[in-house]
């Protein structure tokens, strides 16, 4: 970032002009950074989708996509092309403005969430103090893409499915919120970079927060409508849920947003519990590896787990889903807020006293 600002400040000098003001250089370099970053994230989604399909296929002893490009690497691009060149169909009775706005909201929010994710020490577009709350706010806004899409299509199937999935997302957000609180109590900061730095002496997954990692994993699956909680879509049983009236590019936007949210939550779990960009132990060959590769590796591990769950866990029924969210995960995470608080106040100072800090 500093290099970019310096480059743009001094750029006019080479053309015999006055150096650029700091505000302009900052604006230009920030915009450039955001465009490149968003482009990279979007292209990477193509490969995440491919990985998802390949893992799923391998569990079922199929080969998965293997025709377009080497090992089927370009399959997702081919699919995206297909969607873009199809005719967008808007139902005659649909509310046209909201119908088109809903997928745009979904995809935009999915992009916006990446602004605060620290890829390495200091590699972050917006290093804000309330990073975790920002992510939580963005993910709670994701409901609107779903409800607006379901309502605007003016189809009772789409609408009912939208209500169900909105209820599901709102329910699991509560337990995600409490899990985040436990991590905040441990790290003592809402800034994602600070949370990672606080794990330099031990990742939170190896502390008493381990149950919260499990709760977070289950809640993330439910929040992003992944199997075994994909009740709104239930590929083998129902039509496409709230997206039933969508085709072409609007559908593509929903699809893109969905996968970006999954990767986002994998990244959030890596940052909150698996130490983000930090190596497992701070010794020579490990800490020479760039932090972004560690983070990427952790996201890949999390994504692999998410994909495996899709492949071999049977689908939940709707009432079972609600029971799990409200009667199991919520009380557990609420109790853990108290336990984490007690640990930080009573046990941690005692341990520090015994081991001399």
């Amino acid at each position, binding site marked *: 970032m500093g290099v970019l600002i310096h480059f743009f400040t001094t750029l006019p000098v080479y053309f015999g002009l006055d150096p650029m003001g700091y505000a302009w250089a900052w604006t230009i370099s920030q915009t450039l950074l955001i465009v490149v970053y968003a482009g990279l994230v979007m292209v990477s989604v193509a490969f995440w989708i491919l990985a998802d399909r390949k893992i799923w296929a391998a569990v079922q002893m199929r080969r998965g996509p293997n025709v377009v490009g080497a090992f089927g690497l370009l399959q997702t691009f081919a699919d995206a092309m297909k969607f873009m060149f199809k005719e967008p169909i808007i139902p005659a009775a649909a509310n046209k403005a909201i119908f088109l706005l809903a997928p745009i909201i979904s995809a935009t929010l999915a992009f916006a969430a990446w602004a605060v994710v620290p890829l390495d020490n200091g590699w972050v577009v917006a290093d804000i*103090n*309330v990073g975790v*709350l920002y992510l939580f706010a963005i993910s709670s806004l994701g*409901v*609107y893409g779903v409800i607006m899409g379901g309502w605007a299509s003016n189809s009772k199937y789409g609408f009912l499915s939208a*209500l169900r999935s909105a209820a599901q997302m709102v329910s699991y*957000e509560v337990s995600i919120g409490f899990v985040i609180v436990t991590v905040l109590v441990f790290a003592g900061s809402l800034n994602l970079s600070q949370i990672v730095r606080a794990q330099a002496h031990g990742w939170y997954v190896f502390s008493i927060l381990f149950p919260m990692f499990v709760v977070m994993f289950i809640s993330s699956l439910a929040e992003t409508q992944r199997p075994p909680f994909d009740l709104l879509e239930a590929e083998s049983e129902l039509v496409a849920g709230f997206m039933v009236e969508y085709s072409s590019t609007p559908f593509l936007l929903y699809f893109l947003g969905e996968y970006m949210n999954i990767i986002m939550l994998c990244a959030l779990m890596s940052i909150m519990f698996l130490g983000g960009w930090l190596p497992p132990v701070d010794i020579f060959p490990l800490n020479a590896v760039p932090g972004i590769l560690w983070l990427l590796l952790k996201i890949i591990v999390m994504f692999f787990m998410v994909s495996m769950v899709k492949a071999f866990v049977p689908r939940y029924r709707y009432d079972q889903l609600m029971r799990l969210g409200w009667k199991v995960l919520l009380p557990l995470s609420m109790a853990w807020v108290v336990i984490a608080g007690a640990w930080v106040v009573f046990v941690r100072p005692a341990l520090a006293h015994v081991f001399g800090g």
Partner: protein
Amino acid sequence: MMLQAIAFYVFAAVLLFSGAVVVTSRNPVYSVLFLILAFFNAAGLFVLLGAEFLAMILVIVYVGAVAVLFLFVVMMLDVDFAELKKGAQSYLLPGLGIGGLLAVELILAVAMKWNFATQAMPAATTPKGITNTAALGHILYTDYIFYFQGAGLILLVAMIGAIVLTLRHKSGVKRQNAWTQISRGPAESMSVVEVKSGEGVE
């Protein structure tokens, strides 16, 4: 400073516009959607004031939870708003009176530069060296702990009240016990029978 001024006027203009649409729109769903837009712009104004924690909480609580429920209700209930608004004209005069009174109060408050609340202002600024969130926590959990706990208690009572009012115990409903379902083993749920050809199972 220039950018901040532009951001302020954009947020404020969109906020006022969407507030106006909320009360004038014919379609209640549009009203709620513009209400959400208004919340969002209010959060933007909070960020400009340096109150990033309040901004995020506004989005999480009001946009992420309260407005979702509004939207649910408005979309599912077949409320005829034209019917509801029929007698609205007769309330025009009291409405204008109350609105005007509020506007006068606001103008007075701003014009007097909050002179009547000299104690409140220093408390509302963030101390140097700690984040906005930590500053709020320091105030909320020390000086105002009883008010904070009291507010929490009132919300809890409201929640329990709502549950008590709507909870119905139906008799004769078969309920599932997830624990007994999970803990069921093959021994008590199936039996392996050797069946001789042509005899069938009893």
